[in-house]
């Protein structure tokens, strides 16, 4: 079981963590909302919670909770460039159907 980062994604997140000046890692998860049921949560983690599950990928700590792991297990977070646009994208094997925008999905 794991959630991983691509190497490029890890460098990118580390860069922003250092510019932000605080944070122990990246929190990923899901919440119920959006056009297709669930949507991703992508936040800075300033601390770890009791139920947290922590992975380390290319030197960056990736934190999630049990619900997040259920829906995100096996996912890789990648850094994607589309023209000038640069940002993160989940490659999630659990997704059955996603809304056109990719921000929400069903499993």
């Amino acid at each position: 079981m794991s959630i991983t980062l691509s190497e490029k994604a890890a460098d990118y997140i580390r860069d922003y963590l250092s510019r932000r000046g605080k944070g122990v890692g990246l929190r990923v998860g899901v919440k119920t909302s959006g056009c297709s049921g669930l949507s991703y949560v992508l936040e800075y983690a300033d601390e770890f919670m009791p139920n947290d599950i922590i992975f380390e990928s290319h030197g960056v700590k990736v934190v999630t909770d049990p619900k997040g792991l259920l829906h995100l297990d096996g996912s890789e977070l990648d850094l994607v460039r589309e023209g000038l646009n640069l940002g993160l994208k989940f490659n999630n094997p659990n997704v059955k159907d996603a809304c056109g925008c990719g921000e929400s999905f069903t499993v």
Partner: protein
Amino acid sequence: MSLMQIAEPGQSLAPHAHRLAVGIDLGTTNSLVASVINGVAECIPNANGELLLPSAVYFAADKIAVGSAAKARAASDPEHTFISIKRLMGRGLDDVQQMKPALPYRFDPAETAVPRMDTPHGWMSAVEISAEILKPLKARAEARLGGELTGGVITVPAYFDDAQRQATRDAARLAGLHVLRLLNEPTAAALAYGLDRQAEGLIAVYDLGGGTFDISILRLRQGVFEVIATGGDTQLGGDDFDQAIALWLMERAGLGLSPSTPLNAGDQRHLSSTACALKEALTGKEQTCARLDLHGKTVWTGCLTCNDFNTLADPLIERTLTACAQALKDAGIQANEIQEVVMVGGATRVPRVRERVSAFFGREVLTDIDPDKVVALGAALQADVLAGNKPADEMLLLDVTPLSLGLETMGGLVETLIPRNTTLPVARAQEFTTFKDGQTAMSLHVVQGERDSVEHNRSLARFTLRGIPPMVAGAARIRVTFQIDADGLLTVSAQEKTSGIHAEIQVKPSYGLSEESVEQMLRNAFDHASDDVQARRLREAKVEATRSLEALDSAMASDADLLTEIDRPILNAAQTLLSQAIQGEDAQAINEAVEQLENAALPFIQRRMNQAVSRALAGHTVDDMATQMRHT
């Protein structure tokens, strides 16, 4: 899709809720765009990785070039290459024709309020040219952020008057950018600086840009950025240092101040760029040498020493320090009470400037923040809050009006209505009466500035109040309210009090585009572009209409007790009308229905505001109430 950004803990928004907003520093020499990405404010480069977009626009017969490509044409086709166009914003033909050095453009003699210049694309005003600078910045940001922008915060010199601010706003409109706020440049810098270091206390922001100088004194306390005084000079900047060197070069070359063969526009530009290059090369050295070619031959070779330069620069720096002293006096503080001096603007790289400013405030100035980027970064932070991505509780800006607002009285004197450095927003009412029996109209002249006589101040607008009910002289009581909003823009309203009649106001801005001209320009712009102006209008109207309906629904639900028997049927009718209009395709009809709804809702919304104030003061649910108000 827009790719995902990292949010602050607990602030992941619902999908699609993250609104894309930018801060734009529309500078005299260079412009930049920045946005908050992954919670960090950063400047957005173009495809070549360049952050600074030179504020230059070149009109060729078949295309419009912006930035470095345009700047490169300055020497070869000066008539159609517009640089430092910001200096022309909100200025009349008279002002513009007196500028030094003389501008190489051909002006339309028929248009004096908003000077228009000849280009292969027809007559162009400074507003339209500035819009051309904003367009690629907007496009750059949309490509980086992956979607259409909700809006932007555009920075202006704190010392900009109403006409200059209005011109900036119009330029954004022409570029298709919704303006969330016009933000004063030094305030933006203070924001970027203060948030970065969690600074507290009194700070001074010394902002010497290419064409303008601003000084602002701020008090920072727990995320509140309060401007307590501001001052400056909109006609003084780094360009003036170049100009001083250029004059010095002319003198050394034996050409004097008025050479027998007048310089053509190309030579003029060459002279300016030689001067600028000398200034930049001198930084950190004792002297720097160069050669000047004019009229196709070398007219001078020689060196500029530090001492020469200081002699040229000191009178200019002196002017900035006088403004600093005035701002300190207005703020009621001593120079030694200032805890930090933040330097902003490319011209603060000049060592002599740093040296003199340090001496004036009696402390080392802060130069470790990139003076080119800090304004855009601050604007991006404010845009993020105004777009709703970040709670406003974390930071709040309280700005002031830079110039006194007054009315012309008998004998060409000015009566001050709103003194400078008054916290914004501000509204002041003044009562007038008629001086003739049966008088039904009255003219007012609004000016901005600090001098006692009208002719020495900036004329903002002339108003005619019409529809005053005929009465004996002195019986009418006309209350005129002047409001300056958080953008520093003025609106005026009037009412005759004895009859309750609202006097009609005809506004004639002294310098600036009328609403109709902006509309016409928008139409022209879209005739040539693929973007469909009608479709965008309709979309915007629907968004605003839906927002109004939702806001009213939730207000009616949460404060039903404040609704009267009279309110309900009127509100319901207006709601139905608007809901129907939204289904249609007529933007005009939707906007009219919104206006009707808002007029109908006005008494109710005001009662809610009053109640919110009382509750806020009652202490117990203070923050909840304002929060509730905001979210409904």
